[in-house]
């Protein structure tokens, strides 16, 4: 029984096509499980349809139609491409990855196995290529009975349970449940005793600093450090300061010369002044919302 759904605001952004691509992956996955939201989405599409049929008309030249028809005629001669082979070898041997929603299946690497990384003793993660770099899209797999170290996030995190279940202080989550964690919310998920729990996770990535020093400071995104917690709870993250971020990246790359850069290593700094925190994210004091990517200066 699904108890946790995307809110109406997220659903309307999904249906209107204004929600971030990676978050849409999460919403679509939820829709696969949830009748209720599917019918809400159908209604939201109908709203789009009725706005379309009511909107003011703009004249379209006859040549547009003529051009379209010749395009259509040209395409009729093209033979339809051979249907893509569906099975990914990587999923066949792992029971956990059988019968995933189609949209998630599409994210699995073709012809090669997923690369699972251990993050602590009970959590494994495998990053997925989702066609964008704004969010980190990944599978999180908690082993049965496993507890994940208490952690919080530099940015928004959306989790959709795919298999098994887990619980935290707030409740139990089962397949299809859609959870949104705001930056700074601390939680400690624990998987059910009887089976592993597989989750689809979309995480607003803090600035990724690359290179040797980055790995030294924060080898795993989930490691609980005093620094990350202080940064995440600090209400005065500044708006993006590209110059300083760039400078830090260059500095770190210079220090770690010769060591191959490694994508996806996250790091959090806590410099003297809040102004210099190299985060995209910004918690606004007034709205309490993350101002990420809005490009606007923070109120606070």
């Amino acid at each position, binding site marked *: 029984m699904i108890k946790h759904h995307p809110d109406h605001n997220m659903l309307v952004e999904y249906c209107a096509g204004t929600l971030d691509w990676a978050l849409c992956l999460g919403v679509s996955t939820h*829709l696969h499980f949830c009748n209720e939201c599917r*019918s809400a989405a159908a209604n939201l599409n109908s709203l789009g349809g*009725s706005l379309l049929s009511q909107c003011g008309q703009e004249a379209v030249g006859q040549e547009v139609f003529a051009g379209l028809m010749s395009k259509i005629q040209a395409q009729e001669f093209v033979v339809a491409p051979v249907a893509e082979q569906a099975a990914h070898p990587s999923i066949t041997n792992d029971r956990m990855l059988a019968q995933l929603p189609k949209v998630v299946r599409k994210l699995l690497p073709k012809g090669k196995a997923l690369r699972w990384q251990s993050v602590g003793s009970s959590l494994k993660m495998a990053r997925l290529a989702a066609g964008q770099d704004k969010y980190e899209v990944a599978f999180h797999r908690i082993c049965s009975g496993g507890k994940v170290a208490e952690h919080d996030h530099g940015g928004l995190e959306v989790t959709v349970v795919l298999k098994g279940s887990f619980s935290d202080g707030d409740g139990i989550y089962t397949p299809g449940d859609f959870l949104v964690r705001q930056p700074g919310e601390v939680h400690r998920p624990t998987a059910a005793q009887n089976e592993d729990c597989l989750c689809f996770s979309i995480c607003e990535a803090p600035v990724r600093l690359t290179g040797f020093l980055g790995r030294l400071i924060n080898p795993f995104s989930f490691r609980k450090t005093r620094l990350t917690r202080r940064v995440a709870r600090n209400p005065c993250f500044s708006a993006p300061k590209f110059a300083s971020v760039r400078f830090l990246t260059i500095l770190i790359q210079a220090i770690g010369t010769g060591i191959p850069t490694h994508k996806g290593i996250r790091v959090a700094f806590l410099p003297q002044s809040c102004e210099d925190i190299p985060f995209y994210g910004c918690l606004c004091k007034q709205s309490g919302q993350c101002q990420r990517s809005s490009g606007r200066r923070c109120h606070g």
Partner: protein
Amino acid sequence: MTQTLMNHSKGDDIPSGIRDDNWSRLLMQVGQQRNQESFARLFAHFAPLIKGFCLSNPSSSLPGEAADELVQEVMFKVWTKAPSYDASKAAASTWIFTVMRNCRIDMMRRNSRHLVNSADVEVDDIWDEELDHQPFVRLQQSRNEELIQKSFATLPAEQKLALTQVYMQGKSHSEIAEETGLPLGTVKSRVRMGLKKIQASFGKR
């Protein structure tokens, strides 16, 4: 006067004061019989609406040419995807809206600074038509659309505006907040309240 206007549609079996479900029937014909004449009529009706919809964003200053290109792209998709259209599941305008939305997402994505060409996942995988074909979604869609249209008209101006900005201008809540200077929470609650009133017209959520 009216008479001369009516003469334009002489020979058509559908009167000019066409109802929405007639468009749906026409779209079915396009899908099943690949009827180009029906398609020409769909084009004449929907192309100016699609263009109007896309040009309703005053800040995007989409040049007329680009709007025409988008119209062409949307109607091309309408033609190719029409065989999968099912009038019992969605009114023609709703279905065309979703085709248009997907084209717009594609277009915006191509220009996004966050685009990484590493994934197979495409717009149609996320906004998957099959999802709409599953049980419980089979409401009476065209009736729904009428109800929605009516209750939308009764919304307070600010809620109407917020929903228009989301749908027609293609803006996220935070973009609206940024442009209007309203707190994000206010934008969200206007959208939510508007939707609540609309949804109240056909039952819960």
